[in-house]
């Protein structure tokens, strides 16, 4: 059961500068964002997240490609004609208006009757729990409260899609955690599609229905947090989200259902299907918590020498040097049943959990 598409981005490119200075901030990006979805754009600084958001909002226009809202072409509409609102990173509250006037601004510009504006503003103030601040000036409220006003202001006109550009990055850790929960609640309550930008992978994993991981102006992978974490398609994605190990392996069998890779140890492992060419060397990734250390070398997928043990409270990280000169890090829970009394210099076997191995594109 999938909801209909709210925003459809089709082969969109955005070029800044001309000639020798030409630079593609977005390079043929395509993605469908569904109704009622909490959709996150995740990627390092400069990868084009803000640019994509600005194209959807209408502050910039694409060099090539199309953006559709519920099937209607909007790529060249000015921002004030798009039923899409933005929560700005710096909030951009109007300093000459009160909290209530800020929230009512969008409705006022849509020429809604005063009574309707009044009641919607009251409703929005309740939604973000700011009723008592109604007549304050925006410089008389705290950063977290400004954040709520910015949210309420963008939600008040009931946009089809709400764009949020790193709205939490200016807040301190505790406030940030609180606002994450609040944002999620608001999204569920209003049923509005949220397109949320962040470069914080943890934030993306906890809040999103789906995540698009971006790098260098391209979307590398779109999927649920679980997909992205457990089945990264690219080396970059695996590396950007959480800690992971990369190993070289040979692709020895490939079909539409599964693939088989041969590890440096000679062991064969089954993975998901891949588009890589048969008998080529491929990169595989295994999360540190997806392996256990065992004595029984014959039964192990890999073996190596423990070179370093790092204790980190909840778990210990065993650094193991493989015969292939690669390094593998295994994370063992300190409270769990697994054996962990290994010492540096010892030879250990590494056994992967089922489905732990994933082939990634470089």
């Amino acid at each position: 059961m999938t909801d209909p598409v709210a925003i459809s981005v089709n082969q969109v490119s955005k070029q800044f500068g001309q000639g020798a200075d030409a630079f593609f901030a977005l390079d043929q990006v395509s993605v469908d964002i569904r109704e009622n979805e909490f959709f996150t754009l995740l990627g390092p600084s400069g990868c084009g997240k803000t640019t994509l958001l600005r194209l959807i909002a209408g502050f910039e226009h694409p060099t090539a490609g199309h953006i559709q809202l519920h099937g209607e072409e909007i790529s060249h509409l000015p921002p004030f004609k798009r039923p899409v609102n933005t929560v700005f990173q710096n909030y951009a509250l109007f300093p000459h208006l009160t909290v209530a006037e800020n929230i009512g601004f969008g409705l006022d510009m849509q020429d809604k009757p005063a009574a309707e504006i009044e009641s919607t503003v009251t409703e929005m103030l309740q939604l973000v729990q700011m009723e008592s601040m109604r007549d304050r000036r925006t410089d008389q409220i705290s950063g977290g409260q400004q954040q709520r006003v910015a949210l309420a202001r963008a939600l008040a006109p009931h946009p089809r899609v709400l764009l949020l550009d790193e709205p939490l990055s200016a807040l301190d850790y505790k406030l940030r955690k609180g606002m994450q929960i609040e944002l999620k609640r608001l999204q569920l309550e209003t049923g509005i599609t949220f397109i949320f930008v962040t470069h914080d992978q943890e934030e993306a994993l906890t809040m999103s229905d789906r995540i698009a991981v971006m790098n260098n102006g391209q979307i590398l992978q779109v999927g649920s947090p679980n997909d992205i974490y457990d089945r990264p398609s690219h080396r970059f994605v695996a590396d950007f989200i959480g800690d992971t190990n990369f190993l070289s392996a040979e692709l020895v069998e490939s079909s539409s259902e599964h693939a088989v890779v041969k590890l440096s140890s000679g062991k064969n492992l089954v993975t998901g299907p891949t588009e890589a060419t048969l008998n080529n060397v491929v990169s595989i990734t295994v999360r540190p918590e997806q392996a256990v250390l065992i004595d029984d070398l014959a039964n192990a997928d890999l073996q190596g020498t423990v070179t370093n043990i790092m204790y980190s409270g909840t778990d210990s990280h065993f650094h193991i040097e493989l015969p292939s000169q690669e390094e593998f890090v295994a994370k063992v829970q300190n409270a769990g049943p697994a054996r962990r009394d290994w010492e540096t210099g010892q030879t250990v076997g590494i056994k992967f959990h089922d489905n732990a191995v994933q082939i990634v594109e470089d």
Partner: protein
Amino acid sequence: MSSSIVSPKKLFSIYKLPGFTFIAITCFVMLYAPIMILVGYSFNEGSSLALWEGLSLRWYYSAWQNEAVKDATLLSLIIALQASLYSTVLATMAALGTTRTRAYRGQTAIYAMINQPLMVPEIVTAVALLIVFATIKQATGYQGLSFLVIAHTAFCVPFAYLPIRARLEDMDRSLEIAAADLYATPWRCFRRVTLPLLLPGILAGAMLAFVISLDDVVITEFVKSAGQDTLPTFMLGQIRRVITPEMNAIASALLAVSVLMVSLIFLINRKKT
């Protein structure tokens, strides 16, 4: 907002340079002593400019009674009000045109041209206007006030322009983007966001233009037709004949107006930042 603990002022202090205090005091004395003396003597009872004969408002009263002074004051105000209004409108448009557009060729040249009255010697502008206006006066026979209003408007534009432009450049551009995002058409965005935020700059620009127009001698002297004396040109005419303490009183009053205006500009700009 937190500031660094060691302020740069502590690292290098101009106050500690040898002779700083002496030079500073000398400058202030040279700037303000003559003005203080002028203001002081405007309250002199006697008719001498050098001899103090007691405190009185006699010369203010005498200036107040003087029909010629009244006429000149009125004319000055009429011209200054019109010139500051027109120049502020023009300056606002110029400021918007130089900050709220995509970068275009010749932008710097336009910026320089708007500010040229600050650079070109006033006497040059005065002579140029004299020649042009004289031709028009001859051709049309029209001798009215418009020439003075146009001339004043022209040289007031850069003074009005500077504070308006400064304010536009300081303004957070994302506010206008946010307004557009919230369904404001470009015109309503200007009316509801840009203009209200720009208002202190516009007021400051208008007042500056007003003071500048009120003070002007050179251009007015060249452009005016017979009988069109503003307060400064009237004073100039008077002083050529005989210097009376009445001039002190008028000058002091003019000074009071200017100081008031400048203080207002200062207050308006401080309130918003």
